[in-house]
């Protein structure tokens, strides 16, 4: 089956920043993404768990999008403006998609 090259961008960010991030993605002309809840983990600030997170200011989400390769740089510029000072991880990897016209 014919597949097409694309980029998969995964951004782990504090829940309180989610809307600011998705708005920045829209500014980069990326209109499709998924948001996944994070259950817990460990990082530079130590271990954390979603359990018992009473404040909206704590906890993380993962925002995932798959885009055409030429959209990557504008997207990363916008994403960086949001995550620069925040806790977060941005990763990019190559992937293949079936229906290129959807991206």
């Amino acid at each position, binding site marked *: 089956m014919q597949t097409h090259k694309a980029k998969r961008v995964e951004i782990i960010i504090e829940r309180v*920043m989610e809307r600011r991030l998705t708005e920045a993605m829209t500014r980069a002309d990326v209109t499709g993404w998924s948001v996944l809840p994070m259950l817990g983990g460990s990082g530079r600030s130590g271990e954390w768990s979603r*359990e018992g997170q009473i404040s909206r200011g704590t906890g993380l989400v993962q925002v995932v999008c798959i885009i055409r390769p030429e959209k990557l740089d504008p997207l990363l510029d916008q994403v960086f403006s949001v995550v620069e000072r925040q806790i977060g991880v941005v990763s990019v990897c190559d992937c293949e998609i079936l229906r290129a016209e959807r991206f």
Partner: protein
Amino acid sequence: MLDLAADNLLSPIVLSFVLGLFAALARSDLSVPEAVAKGISLYLLFAIGFKGGAGVAAHGLDPRLAATILAGLVLSFALPFAAFGLLRVLSGMSRIDAAAVAGHYGSISIVTFVAATTLLANAGLTAEGYMVAVAAAMEAPAILSALWLLSRGDGNTKMDSDLWREILLNGSIVLLLGAFVIGMATGQDGLDSIAAFIVSPFQGVLCIFLLDMGLIAGRGLRSAGVLDRGAVAFGLVMPLVGALAGLGAGMLLGLSTGGVMLMMTLSASASYIAVPAAMRVAVPEANPSIYLTLSLAVTFPFNLTLGLPLYLAVARIMTGG
């Protein structure tokens, strides 16, 4: 005073909190599902807002309403400065962390407020219904004070209109004030029609919520190593400073015994919902472990167990109630 403290410590709501605290410290797998805790907090906010509004409807609009809200705003603006000064004296905390913590102590804990109203009800006392509106008014001004403290230290803060909208229209404030308005509009008849839902089960539901708060505070205590002794001392002394300021305001306004006690409680409590969210956006460099642990694991348990009966006893002595 000692009897009141003992009664409070042995009340179902405080014992539920203690159960949660010990379960978390003992690393039990006991937990309240996130959706249940969220649902219960919606219930409590609706119930307390509605009852406050119905109380105002029953007694008519009090001319002191506006003055009391204004006093709440002033306290919320001013208390972070006292907190910041105290922190700088007691603790070796950085200026950024101290300012972020200070912002939490000018804002309020609505759960502490709910527990205080329950203590008042159990003591056969009532308070001015509009204290609910005062609670809502005191949520946000402290954030401005904290940001001002940060800006004086060349702190790089980032506040935008979106953040202000999120703070002022956060779900808790909208529900609390919305229920208050519904209670005021429908009055005693409205309250009677839903009393079976928002009055009778209230204390039982509050027990489950405080069980969850105990679990959260216990998990916070496990990470209390981020706090130095001075910071822990601050978490215990600052509520008393705030309560004293609230007492002065309540007495000047001529509030009832219950009203003075609630004013003391609001001034003594520290935020762990609205302010942490604002600080994460505006001052991400501040360490959330410090302000959340202080607010949730030190000040909240202190207020719930010892602070509330103390504030009630002092309010009774000062007002002769």
